[in-house]
């Protein structure tokens, strides 16, 4: 029997993160027994949704210690649960919080850890993409169970299976000595409108926009389209035009919208990793040899500062 666990991040409102549902969907095809571990406020309320996506068991704790302190309480409690139930595979999403927990857990268990996975052909095998997604590498995972695999968001589509989960209460027996790095404030820097990861259309801008003020054109375009979010290349994030939360690519977010519109973005491999799975790609760049055109379904060679304002007008006209 193969037991697969998913470390499920949940919001305090009881909504599981989309990545938790993606991973559970995949876990169903890898194991006979599938469980989720949800730690922190909202865990219990999230159990029905986790069950619906394949968790037969949800190990849950509502204790605020898991939200207040980084990684150590979660790694400690996970290590205890693993010693008791011995899963074969534990999946994490490649998010800020989960990566911290996975790294600590690996060291505790002496287990193998595969980061940046994009697929799992078997419970002891993972696939990752290297060199900006130009090569696919399949890796056999050795060493003691559980194997730890950190999966990039959006690698699998979440599909409900209609199951229900038994909730098993987990004791938050976290020693004082593991309550160290403490979150004291939370800040949102998100623009209004749909989330970047969930929008049907992503309008992304790069250095070719020239300066920060021109970036506002993309916001206007996204508004005109509706259900669209604005993203950015790392070059403009590093330049401080927009917050890091907008970055798309290897070290930023992965998006898979229906349409991705790249404006003034050269299309470096590290950027492509985060967007090449979009259903359709449109690119505007003044350089006909820009690498982004190699993957664009529609490429327009032109100046962003004339094409984008005209496009805003066209879209407004179309939508009446």
């Amino acid at each position, binding site marked *: 029997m193969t037991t697969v666990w998913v470390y499920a991040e949940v919001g305090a409102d009881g909504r599981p993160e989309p990545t938790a549902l993606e991973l559970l969907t995949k876990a169903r095809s890898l194991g006979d027994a599938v469980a989720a571990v949800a730690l922190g406020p909202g865990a219990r309320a999230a159990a029905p949704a986790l069950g619906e996506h394949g968790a037969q068991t949800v190990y849950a704790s509502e204790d605020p210690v898991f939200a207040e302190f*980084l990684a*150590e309480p979660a*790694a400690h409690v996970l290590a205890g649960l693993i010693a008791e139930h011995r899963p074969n595979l534990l999946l994490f999403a490649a998010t*800020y919080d989960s*990566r*911290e927990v996975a*790294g*600590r*857990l*690996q*060291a*505790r268990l002496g287990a*193998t*850890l*595969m*980061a*940046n996975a994009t697929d799992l052909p078997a419970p002891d*095998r993972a696939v990752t993409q290297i060199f900006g997604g*130009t*090569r696919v*590498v*399949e890796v*056999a*995972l*050795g060493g003691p169970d559980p194997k730890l695999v950190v999966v990039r968001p959006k690698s699998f589509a979440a599909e409900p299976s209609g199951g229900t989960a038994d909730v098993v209460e987990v004791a938050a027996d976290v020693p004082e000595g593991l309550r*160290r*790095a*403490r*979150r*004291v*404030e*939370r800040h*949102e*820097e*998100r623009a209004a409108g749909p989330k970047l990861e969930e929008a049907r*259309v992503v309008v992304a801008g790069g250095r070719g926009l020239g300066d920060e003020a021109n970036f506002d054109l993309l916001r206007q375009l996204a508004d005109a*389209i509706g259900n669209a979010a604005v993203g950015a290349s790392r070059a403009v994030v590093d330049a*401080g035009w927009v*917050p*890091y*939360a907008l970055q798309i690519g290897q*070290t930023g*977010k992965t998006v898979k919208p229906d*349409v991705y519109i790249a404006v003034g973005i050269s299309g470096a491999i590290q950027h492509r990793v985060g967007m090449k799975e979009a259903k*359709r*790609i*449109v690119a505007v760049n003044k350089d006909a040899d820009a690498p982004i055109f190699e*993957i*664009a379904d*529609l*490429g*327009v*060679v*032109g100046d962003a500062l004339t*094409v984008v304002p*005209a*496009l805003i*007008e*066209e879209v407004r006209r*179309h939508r009446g």
Partner: protein
Amino acid sequence: MKIVVLVKAVPNPTGTPEIGEGFRLKREGVELALDPGDEYGVELGLQLAEQTGGEVTYVSMGPAGATAAVRRALSMGGDRAVLVTDPALAGADALATARVLAAAVGRQPFDLVIAGAESTDGYTGTLPMAVAELLGVASASFARRVELRDGAIRLERQTADGYDVVECPLPAVLTVTAGVASPRYPTLKGIMQAKQKPFEQLTVADLGLSAEEVAATQTVERVDAAPERGRGELVQDAGDGAARIAEFLAEAKVI
């Protein structure tokens, strides 16, 4: 304050990487450079050392050819460097690397270990947390602003939608993102001085680790070209580019 900065030598990012025998990244004859992502950690380490009258030690694991990359950090500033290099580490995975780095860091007392959030070639982003766990100290990752306050670290930690403010006691392991500090350029004087600074090379045995502890737990089975996404239509904007895009969006039913 005693500061350790983890620095990694990576294949020069301008070249096209190649895969060699045993599916390993070809490193022979490939120039190694200091990971650009690590320069932010170096700069932060130097600034904190300057503020507190402290010292900076660089710790790295890599092939013998990594010396020049580590020396680049020394030419920016800092006091000494340790490079763990051993043929037994040729195929080291994240666990082995974490064990080696933790052992090398733990040889001396320290207050703060700084690492990059993700390396340019490996980008697992989990390794420094494994090091923290092995050292038994606190940690926080993805810091974009760091300050010392009352003997602890106060930092802004990146999140998906913004940032958290985190207070972290010392000793600790921190990972930093671009923007935490602007890396200085090595001066000619710095480059000359770097040649005189203590530079230790250690093997796995020097660290008291066994061959099993650094044996790889992963084997690459195959490497394939990723399916290519075809090139589509390319049009020159002659005043009609925007109309063409609008048509495309309408066909895709998003407007």
